[in-house]
């Protein structure tokens, strides 16, 4: 690991990514932020500088465009200590069901672009470093309410699992984070319940995971047990329960 640690946060203006970045900033990290909206990126960067980031560089990139990969890989330079791929959208399942183009766009943003970025950035991660991507509990089972989003998150899960096997001999940890419901702008339209977690709680778990863990982590941790049950249910039961 270099000192200060050099960290890429792609999708840096998401509420969860901001909380992760704040924790690296407090440790004096050198941060590279990528996101679509320059004004939001600058607002995040100012926050991170005030909190103690050694430096903070912004890359404006739209992840639905393939060239954003080159842009970010170029900005990252030859070596980084950790990368978090944190972008995503939550499509309205009912609204896109009959619209193949919309489904394609949703898979592009939530799966293809993440996978492409993970493959491209992997060679730049230093030994002992971590490549992390945000999956979702939604990727563990296909549910009527969000199977397009779920399919994209499942793709991330399987891809990262394979990449983990490939990079393990090189001493690089590959981490998939599966958050449950988080109270963020992405879920603004959803009715909240007791299982909703704060972005800060999820951000803290991801930061901790990126420093020490590999494999799959659920955030908050109680989702591990909920999903253990849900993953083991036969499809017929899942459908009957309407989960």
């Amino acid at each position: 690991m270099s000192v200060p640690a050099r960290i890429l946060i792609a999708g840096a203006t998401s509420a969860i990514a901001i909380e992760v970045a704040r924790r690296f900033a407090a440790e004096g990290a050198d941060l590279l932020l990528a996101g679509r909206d320059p004004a939001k990126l600058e607002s995040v960067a100012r926050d991170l500088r005030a909190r103690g980031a050694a430096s903070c560089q912004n890359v404006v990139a739209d992840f639905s465009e393939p060239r954003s990969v080159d842009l970010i890989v170029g900005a990252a330079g030859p070596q980084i200590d950790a990368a978090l791929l944190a972008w995503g959208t939550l499509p309205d399942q009912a609204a896109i069901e009959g619209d193949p183009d919309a489904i394609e766009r949703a898979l592009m943003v939530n799966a293809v672009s993440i996978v492409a970025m993970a493959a491209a950035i992997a060679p730049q991660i230093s030994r002992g470093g971590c490549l992390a991507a945000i999956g979702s509990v939604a990727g563990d089972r296909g549910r009527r309410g969000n199977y397009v989003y779920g399919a994209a998150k499942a793709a991330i899960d399987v891809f990262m699992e394979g990449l983990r096997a490939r990079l393990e001999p090189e001493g690089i940890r590959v981490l998939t984070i599966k958050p449950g419901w988080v109270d963020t702008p992405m879920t603004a339209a959803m009715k909240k319940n007791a299982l909703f977690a704060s972005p800060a709680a999820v951000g803290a778990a991801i930061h901790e995971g990126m420093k020490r863990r590999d494999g799959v982590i659920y955030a908050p941790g109680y989702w591990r047990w909920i999903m253990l049950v849900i993953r083991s249910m036969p499809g017929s039961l899942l459908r009957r329960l309407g989960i």
Partner: protein
Amino acid sequence: MARYESWGRYPRAGEQRTVRIDWRHEPPALDGLAPVLPRGMGRSYGDVCLNDGGTLLLTRGLSGMIELDRAAGLLTVEAGATLGEVLPVLLESGWILRAIPGTKHVTIGGCIANDVHGKDHEREGSFGCHVESMEILRSDRGLVRCSRDEETELFEATIGGLGLTGVILSATLRLRPISSQAVQARRQSFDGWNGFFDSLEAGADDDYSVSWIDASSRGIDPPRGFHLRGSHLPDGRGAGGSRALPAIPMPPVPMTRATIRLACAAYYALQSRRGVTEESFESFFFPLDRITGWNRAYGRRGFLQYQCVIPPAAGRAPVIEILRRIASSATGSPLTIAKRFGPRPSLGLLSFPVEGTTIASDLPASRENLSLLDDLDVIVRRAEGRVYPAKDARMSGENFRTFYPRAAEFQRFIDPRFSSSFWRRVME
């Protein structure tokens, strides 16, 4: 986060729509949503954070720091950031906020809108005394920058303005340098009413001071309690400041006179024996934050907190009378504190702190206690004191307007689309 209730869980509000604000440069559309009320952590006790039938404008997404000038001690921060998020960064840099209230789970915007005070009021005044400037978003004027020199009237109205003058997007605060994050705490029991008042009025040699008084028992005479003083350690040593203490869930305890008396006796016995200790910042300032969900101990009916201030001219008698009445209520109070407000004037038109003795007391919400508090209002009114809106769930409009004679003047600063359950209750 699903339920939008106040900390006292009394009164309850019906349906409230919500709109988030996540970026200062992306104002939310408020068309068709009136009336709107900004809401941070919902830690005010009564109904200043409720907007029954209206819309809550959720500000927690605005949680970023904008600039921390470590040399000059100036922090510019978004208004939805909590003290718990900001303080660790400040403490690491050798600075602290002034007028820190009893919980870190409050937003900067909430601290300004309620012009909160801390254990340092005698020396430092209220939170608003340390605000240099603000960015306020109004439905009629858009973004307004205000400070002590610019848009001064709106600036002052917004301090203690109960969130009604527009939504505060960010604020610049003047910080205080500290020698250490750790605090030396000294507890001293007092004897009788004279001892109680003497310790309150002993002057502000320490950074922080507050008194705990046992108001759980009808036999309050002579009163039992202790005075807690604290000062930052001089030399940078001592317990880590921002270390999070393990949280303890509130145990389910029935709130009866017997359990409340027992709890107060145990608390007094433990605390008064501790004498002088060195404490981490967290344990000195936010002891109740360790007990998650303590407000739920009062059950479904919730609880009332009564906080009033009695000016020095009224003498000691009203303070004693109020404490006696609280102690002889149906259950007594599980938590009553007193402290001295210093002479530094608050800026806001509706700011609560004025020089004098303030009492804050928790009581279960019940018909008897509501009527008790009406009686206490009469005492406060006679003493020309006032009751704290941030804690209030029940004072009459007439009393509010007497306590806050500038309420009528304040009205012209209210954003035309903004209102709250509290404001409608006391002004309509």
